C-alpha cells in the first residue's frame, strides 16, 4: 500500500504535450479516478505511474520514494488493461498464477492464493478454461484476479470496463468497488465515463488537455465544478452552458445571451464582480423547472425535442431561431406531456445558477459562500 504523489509531472512527445506539469497527491488506500475525454493524457499518467512510460520531467513518489527511474517490474504495481491483455495460451489458473510464478512463490502458497483470488471474484469454476472460452465479463474478472493475487502497492486500471456492455459495466462497477473495500489498497483508475467516476471514486481528478481541471470528491465536482470543462463533463447530461455578457439595464444587472436574458441577483453580481465582460452562465438540466415559478426566469422558449429516458425525460427547449438559437435541456418527470413547438417557460432557483468568467473559471457561487 502506498501514497502516490505526482510532482510537476510532464510527458511530451515531439510536438505535443500529453501531460503538462501535473501535481496530484493520492492518499494511501484512496480510490482516485482520473476522468477526462479521449486524448486528455489520463492513460499516459497511468503508464507513467506503472513505469511503462518515462516522464520528460517531474517526479513520481511512492510513499515519498521517487520511482520515476525504477523499471515497471520493480515498482510492484498491478494493472488492469482496457483490452484485458490476458495471456491467450494460458488457462485462467495460469494467468492468475503468473505474477506469483515470476515472484517464485512456493507451490502450496501459490495454489492457495490463486484459488482465494478466484473465489473472491467468483471465477473459481473457470480455472481450467482459456481466455477465448470466457465471456467479456469473465475475462475482466480474471484480469482483476491477476492484479489482485499479489499485494501490489498500487492498483492501476486503464478503462477496464469500456469494452463491456452497459449491464455488465454496472455489475463490474460494484465488483471493483467491493474489491477496493476488501483489499484496502490504493486504486488509480482511468476512465472517460463520468458515471464510473461518480459511483466509485473517493476523489475524482478531472483532466483536460493534459492538465488537471479539478480534484475533489464526486459530490464536490458535481455541485461545485471549478470551471467550464468540469461542468460540461460531469453529470449524465452535462451542464447547459450559455455564452453571453452581463449588462446593466434600467439600474439592474442581467445576463444577456444571444437569445436569452436572465436577471442576476445581487449576490451573483457581487460574486462575479461583473463589468461588461464575457460571462458563461451554466445551469444543469436537473436544476431547471418548467413554468415561471422560480427566479431567475429564463423566459419563454419552444419545445424542440423530447427524449424519454424511462425514469425521467429530457426536454430540449429552443430559444430564438437560426444560427443564434440556444438549446437548453431540462429534466422533467416522465409523465409530463409535451408537444414539439409548444411554448414553454423555464426557471431556475439562484442556487442552481453558475457563472464562469472569460477564462472558464467559476465565479458564482464563489468558494467563500460554500
Amino acid at each position, binding site marked *: 500500500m502506498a501514497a502516490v504523489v505526482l510532482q510537476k509531472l510532464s510527458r511530451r512527445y515531439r510536438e505535443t504535450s500529453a501531460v503538462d506539469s501535473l501535481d496530484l497527491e493520492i492518499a494511501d488506500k484512496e480510490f482516485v479516478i482520473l476522468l477526462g475525454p479521449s486524448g486528455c493524457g489520463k492513460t499516459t499518467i497511468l*503508464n507513467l505511474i*506503472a*513505469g*511503462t512510460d518515462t516522464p520528460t520531467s517531474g517526479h513520481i513518489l511512492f510513499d515519498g520514494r521517487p520511482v520515476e527511474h525504477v*523499471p*515497471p*517490474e*520493480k515498482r*510492484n*504495481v*498491478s*494493472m488492469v*488493461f*482496457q*483490452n*484485458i*491483455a*490476458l*495471456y*491467450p*495460451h*494460458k488457462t485462467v489458473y495460469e494467468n492468475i498464477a*503468473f*505474477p506469483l510464478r*515470476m*515472484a517464485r512463490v512456493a507451490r502450496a502458497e501459490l495454489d492457495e492464493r490463486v484459488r482465494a483470488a478466484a473465489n473472491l471474484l467468483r471465477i473459481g469454476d473457470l480455472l481450467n478454461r*482459456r*481466455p*477465448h*472460452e*470466457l*465471456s*467479456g*465479463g469473465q*475475462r475482466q474478472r480474471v484480469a482483476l484476479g*491477476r492484479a489482485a493475487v499479489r499485494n501490489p502497492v498500487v492498483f492501476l486500471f486503464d478503462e477496464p470496463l*469500456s*469494452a*463491456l*456492455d452497459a449491464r*455488465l459495466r454496472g455489475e463490474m462497477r460494484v465488483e471493483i468497488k467491493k474489491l477496493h473495500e476488501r483489499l484496502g489498497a490504493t486504486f488509480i483508475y482511468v476512465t472517460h465515463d463520468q458515471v464510473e467516476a461518480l459511483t466509485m471514486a473517493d476523489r475524482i481528478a478531472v483532466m483536460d488537455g493534459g492538465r488537471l481541471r479539478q480534484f475533489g470528491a464526486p459530490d464536490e465536482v458535481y455541485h461545485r465544478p471549478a470551471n467550464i470543462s468540469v461542468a460540461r463533463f460531469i453529470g449524465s447530461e452535462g451542464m447547459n452552458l450559455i455564452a453571453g455578457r452581463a449588462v446593466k439595464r434600467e439600474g439592474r444587472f442581467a445576463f444577456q445571451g444571444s437569445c436569452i436574458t436572465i436577471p442576476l441577483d445581487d449576490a451573483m453580481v457581487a460574486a462575479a464582480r461583473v463589468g461588461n465582460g464575457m460571462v458563461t452562465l451554466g445551469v444543469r438540466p436537473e436544476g431547471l423547472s418548467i413554468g415561471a415559478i422560480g427566479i431567475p426566469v429564463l423566459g419563454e422558449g419552444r419545445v424542440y425535442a423530447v427524449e424519454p429516458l424511462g425514469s425521467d425525460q429530457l426536454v430540449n427547449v429552443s430559444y430564438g431561431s437560426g444560427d443564434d438559437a440556444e438549446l437548453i435541456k431540462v429534466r422533467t418527470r416522465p409523465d409530463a406531456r409535451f408537444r414539439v413547438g409548444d411554448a414553454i417557460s423555464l426557471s431556475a432557483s439562484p442556487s442552481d445558477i453558475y457563472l464562469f468568467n472569460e477564462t472558464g473559471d467559476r465565479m458564482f457561487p464563489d468558494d467563500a459562500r460554500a
Partner: protein
Amino acid sequence: MRWAPTSDARFALGIVGGVVLFNVIIFILPLIYAAWISFHDRDVILHTQEFVGFDHYRLILTSAEAIAAILRSIKFTAVVVDLSLVMGLGIALVLNEDFPGRSLLRAAILLPWALSEVVTATAWIFIVNPTFGALTGLLHPLGLVAANHAWINENTALYWVAIAFVWHITPLGTLFFLAALQTIPDTLYQAARIDRAPPLQRFVHVTLPHLRPTVMIVLVVVTVEAFRSFDLLFAMTGGGPGTASQTFPMLIFRYTFEFSRYGLAAAASYILVAIGMIITSIYFLVLMRRRHYVNTGTLPFDADPRSPIAGDRTALPS
C-alpha cells in the same frame, strides 16, 4: 446470354472455373502424365515403351546411390531448417525493435532472398574460392588457414551449399516472424512487465506462444524449399566433388538429362514428394498436438466468445 441479377453464383463459377481449368492443364495433367511415365520404361532411341509397374520405385528404394542421395537431402534440409529458423527468428527479433534506420534494414534484409539461387551460388563460389576467395583472404593473414585452403572438399561440400542456402532462405523466415511479432499486442508485454517478468520470461511466455503457428509455417516452407532445392546446388558444386553434395533432386536431374531414364526420374520425383509430405506430416503431429490459438481475448470488441466477430478462434488443426 442475359445476366440475371441473381447470377452471382454463375459469375463466380465462371471465374473460378477458368482458374480450375488453367490449373488442370498446367498442374494436374503433367502430374498424371508423370505418374504414367513412372510406370513405363521408355527407350528414346528405339522409341519403344513397356509397362513395368512399380519396378522403378523398387529400383530406386533399393539403390545405394539413391538412398545415399536421399540421406544427403535429409542432412542438407536438417542443417538448412535448423540454422535458418534460429537465424530468421533472431533477425526478426532485432528488426522488431525500434531503432534508427530500421525500415531500411528491413528492406535490405530481404535482398538475399530476392537474388536468384544461381547468383547466390556464384557469390558463394567466390567467397569459398581457395586462392582468391573472401574467406581465405580474411583468415589467411590471421594465420588460421593456408594460402590455398580448399574450403569445399568431399567432407564439407554439403555443408557449404547448406550455408549458402541458409543465407538465401533465412530472410523468408524473418519476414514471416516479423509479421507475426507485429501482431502481438503491446499491452501483453506491458502486462508481463508489470507482472514482474524479466525479458527472457517475457519472450518465453508472450512471444514464443504467439509465434508457434508461424514456426510451423516457416518449418514447412523452408523444409519444402530445401528438400527440393536444385538451382543452388547445381550452380555451386554440381553435386560434387564426386557425389559429396549430390542430393536427391540432383540425382533426379542426372537420371533425366544424363541417362535419359525418364521413367526412373518420374518415379524418383514422386518419392521426393512423398518424403516431403511425410516430413511435413510429422511436423503437424509433433507441433500441433495441442490446439493453438492466436490473439485471444485481447480485442476489445469480442465480448461474447460465441459472437461471430469474436474472431479469435484461429485454431489450427489439432
